[in-house]
């Protein structure tokens, strides 16, 4: 639990955790928290923020605050589900490649390189258009194209773990590969997997909003992406209704920022050398003597 304590000592990580947790709680409690229905009008079209409608209303007179809360539910669902898919694939491939080495590693890195080169958004658009536009397809499309960085990070970590004494000792006692991975590799990779999940949530929320904006969102559900699309399509801009545009974007930005802080913080805490200062804060004096030029 040294890692957990190290994490809680960094204010940026704590801030990130609080932000992500907050939105997760809002997403889980969405049906209770929505002040009005998102299916029917509860005010005038494009009514500005007021005491009854804190964030105003959209083009159809639907309460914006309720929309943003309902949007949190679906955006966070897509975010976490897609991140789970991505980390499952990336984690499995990464552990396999790092542990197996040789041809296994060459194959995995080759495939990963290929998927890294393909621009994600155009391929997602093509796949979403081919598959259809339910929320499950969107989760799959995003998850299936977000695992590459997870593979690389996990593979590198497993590489160093494999050389550690306890793995060799377990093997000399006759432990099988599967046992070693489950008992000795997985527990050490777990924090990294959590960090990667949180990081992937950010990009998944981002991609969901992008797909929705292009008209490939789930038409039956409200998400932050579909709110922005709706505002664009129903001329919130020419109506000057900034309140119909601003809130979902800020939510997306907060989730992205929050998970960025968490994910990066965990990676730094696990690999303290990343955080070492090269130059002293005041002026450029000599940097601390840490190994840096690995590349």
């Amino acid at each position, binding site marked *: 639990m040294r890692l957990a304590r190290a994490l809680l000592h960094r204010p940026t990580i704590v801030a990130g955790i609080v932000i992500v947790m907050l939105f997760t709680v809002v997403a889980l409690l969405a049906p209770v928290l929505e002040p009005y229905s998102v299916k029917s009008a509860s005010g005038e079209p494009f009514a500005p923020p007021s005491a009854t409608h804190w964030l105003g209303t959209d083009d159809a007179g639907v309460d914006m605050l309720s929309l943003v809360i309902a949007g949190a539910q679906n955006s966070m669902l897509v975010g976490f589900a897609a991140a789970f898919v991505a980390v499952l694939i990336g984690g499995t491939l990464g552990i396999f490649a790092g542990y197996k080495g040789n041809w296994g590693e060459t194959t995995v890195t080759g495939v990963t*390189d*290929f998927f890294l*080169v*393909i*621009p*994600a*958004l*155009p*391929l997602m*658009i*093509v*796949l979403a*258009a*081919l598959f259809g536009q339910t929320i499950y397809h969107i989760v799959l499309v995003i998850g299936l194209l977000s695992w590459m960085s997870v593979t690389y990070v996990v593979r590198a970590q497993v590489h160093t773990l494999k050389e550690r004494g306890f793995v060799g000792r377990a093997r000399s006692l006759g432990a099988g590969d599967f046992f070693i991975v489950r008992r000795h590799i997985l527990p050490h990779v777990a924090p990294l997997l959590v960090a990667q999940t949180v990081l992937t949530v*950010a990009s998944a929320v*981002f991609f969901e*909003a*992008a797909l929705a*904006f*292009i*008209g*490939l969102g789930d038409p039956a559900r409200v998400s932050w992406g579909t709110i*922005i699309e709706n*505002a*664009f399509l129903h001329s*919130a*801009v*020419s109506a*000057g209704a*900034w309140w119909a*545009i*601003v809130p*979902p*974007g800020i939510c*997306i*930005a907060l989730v*992205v*920022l929050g998970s*960025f802080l968490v994910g990066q913080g965990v990676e730094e805490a696990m690999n303290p050398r990343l955080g070492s*200062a*090269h*130059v002293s*804060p*005041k*002026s*450029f004096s*000599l*940097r601390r003597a840490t190994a*840096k030029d690995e590349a």
Partner: protein
Amino acid sequence: MSKRQKFILRRAGSALVIAFITITFSFVLFRALPGDAASNLSRVPNMPKEAQAALRAQFGIDKPLTTQYLLYLKELARGDLGVSFQDQQPVLDNVLRTIRNTVVMVGIGTVVAILVGTLIGVTAAYRQGSARDRVITGAAMVIYSLPVQWVGLLLLVWFAGWLPTSGMSDPYLFDAGFLETFVDRARHMILPATCVALMLFGSFALVVRSSQLEALGDDHVLTARAKGYRNRRVVWREAFRSAMLPLVTLSTLTLGWVIAGTILVESVFTWPGIGQATVQAVAARDYPLLQGIFLLVTISVVGFNFLGDVLHSVLDPRVAE
């Protein structure tokens, strides 16, 4: 053969392999997945069986997959990407026409992003941890995490009335001279190019800052300081020269990606470029055009990656070893 030549040859080989896999992958994606072109077209109600068969024959979907694949490679080699469903024009013409508009707008936005990002990154690295550094890094990170389409909409809200908000030129501008046309185009370009620059400058600023921080700790910078050079010279001529390497890599990578990333910007500002063509192709289920765009975008990314490798090996001979 020098080490660098060998390195470049090896990278070229792997780029070609990836390009070939992409071409095959795109074939599988568009021909073998459910919902092929003809089954979508033939969804027209009451379409006779013969007409469906004729459609299949026209697009060559009635032949076995291997024959289709070979045919596809042959046509691709001739530069034939098929015919767009929407306007019955060759896909290649459509793609080339729209990509020209994209390259101009995105190119300007990217150059602005690189310049601003560099300036800001170097300024932030000048005193690590200072208030200025923290404000700059924080702002770059926040802007980096904003959804592009949302930033575009806000720009529209703020600047509607001041600047043209959609399209590439004023349709009511007749018989305009060269200067008038140029000013009109430039004014239309301001908002989308600004949006592209905002989308990109954050990552440039962060990368430049961290590589500049590393460079400032290098020995030759310390030597320069010891010689008593001015700060400006130390920062730009000594440190930034070696900090430029990651910037070059990131720039070539970004150039490949912006064509893909411009989809959202072009949708917001209805800029008639490759991104908007993508969205229209999706809406109309225009698979040949979609495939053409996908191929071109992916291969341009592969090409720019290769260019980045070559530049990198020229600037830093160590990578070839």
